């Protein structure tokens, strides 16, 4: 049985969220794609970014705060990952972020030529980079999405921040021409470091936000936030998600996708 994500057929509804597994080089050297339907590598920006100074991670009760700061080698080095992405037996969606509309368009133009990339997740919501959090402003969300839509012909998913009144921020992404939404990025939090909170702790908040939009929005959604088990996946699927992203749970079990997929099959068959 295949899973449809805006016309892309996925083997499973489980998606490796952008971030925890980096760009995949190290992970796929050790583990296979078993259980995964889609891989989204860590966000790439136009120019290289050194990222934030350490410490970058801190554990909380049931959660994890991270502040990596979009460390990456820039789009030109990212293009060298082509052999890896071609070798995977699952589709790969790029994750991009830009500090200006121009950067977003330039990234979109480059990736538009890559037949091995099925779509772009536009990360408008990294909580750890100063001045680039487009997600706080509906008009910025519209402009950023529209800039990418103008140059990019394939699938676009806009990844938004978790916020009160989510429809206010979702609407401009739809108006800007996105095909789907990734809901949501990590939750801004602080303990001794400021960063984005992920893990079990955030799931009830994200479930609540999805319930709020369920009858108001009709667009494919990749749900994200605190997914550690098949029942977590079902909870999001039942709220209308087309696919479900797994992130922090890879730290607890690097083979979590395979585990959840096996568990999920039992549920789905019964």
């Amino acid at each position, binding site marked *: 049985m295949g899973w449809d994500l805006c016309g892309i057929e996925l083997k499973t509804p489980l998606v490796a969220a952008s971030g*925890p*597994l980096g760009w995949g080089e*190290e992970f796929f050297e*050790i583990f296979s794609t078993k259980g995964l339907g889609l891989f989204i590598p860590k966000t790439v920006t136009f120019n290289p970014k050194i990222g934030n100074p350490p410490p970058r*991670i801190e*554990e909380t009760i049931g959660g994890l705060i991270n502040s990596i700061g979009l460390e990456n080698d820039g789009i030109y080095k990212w293009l060298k990952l082509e052999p890896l992405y071609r070798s995977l037996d699952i589709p790969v969606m790029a994750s991009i972020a830009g500090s200006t509309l121009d950067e977003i368009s330039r990234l979109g133009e480059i990736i538009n030529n890559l037949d091995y990339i099925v779509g772009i997740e536009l990360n408008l919501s990294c909580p750890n980079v100063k001045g680039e959090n487009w997600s706080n402003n509906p008009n910025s969300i519209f402009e950023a999405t529209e800039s990418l839509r103008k140059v990019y012909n394939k699938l676009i998913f806009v990844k938004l921040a978790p916020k009160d009144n989510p429809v206010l921020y979702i609407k401009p992404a739809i108006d800007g021409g996105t095909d789907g939404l990734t809901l949501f990025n990590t939750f801004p939090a602080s303990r001794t470091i400021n960063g984005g909170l992920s*893990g079990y702790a955030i799931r009830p908040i994200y479930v609540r936000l999805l319930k709020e939009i369920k009858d108001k929005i009709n667009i494919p959604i990749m749900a994200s936030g605190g997914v550690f088990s098949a029942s977590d996946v079902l909870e999001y699927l039942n709220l209308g998600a087309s696919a479900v992203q797994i992130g922090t749970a890879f730290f607890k079990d*690097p083979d979590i996708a395979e585990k959840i997929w096996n568990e999920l099959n039992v549920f789905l068959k019964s």
Partner: protein
Amino acid sequence: MPKIYKGNIIENKPIGGLFLLTVSIEEEISVNPGQFFLIRIDREDIVLRRAFSIFDVNGDRLSFLYRVVGRGTKWLSERRVGYTLNIFGPLGNGFSLCQGKSLLVGGGSGMAPLYYLGKRLREGIKFLLGAQTKDFWDDDLLLKYSNVGEIEVITEDGSLGKKGLVTEYIDTGYDRIYACGPVEMLKNIRVDIPTEISLETIIACGFGACRGCVVETKNGEYKRVCKDGPVFDLKEIF
């Protein structure tokens, strides 16, 4: 290549101020001294595994010497013989095994990776171990180390061995120094001998992907403790 193993607990007991954990993974694997394993904490309120450098390897048995510092290690210390731990590794680079005379400097629980290193170096080694007070060790633990090489202990309160900090007792008659311990200790190694240090930090993925565990090098680069380390050249970091 690292793998996820089922680690059946053979022993998990206090030894001085530390705990000694031995698991059987029912497979003989090759581990470099200084490499580490990530042990899953089977509690929903703890999302990260805990990183432990290898203390000893015997056939299909892996041993870890650890200190209880928080919720994760407390949970681990309460697991009984027969419990099956989920263990991922070996990870990281490990120490290089060089010929010649070596001084193995361990501060507190930083002594853990030096035991297997000593066993693998075999000859010309001396352990210089430091702790706040003599209660940190027990006789069995010190005996283990002295069976592998010459041993000198230093305590901050002078309750065993010489009084002070290990860094005050590092002399120069060695070809290489291997050190593990608190950052303050590592920073204060000021001899002109090639020195390898093992760094400790919170680890998320463990295989170099997530960029969560980076350390800043002296020239301002960020290196991943889990993949580029945990063993670094002292001069690269401090």
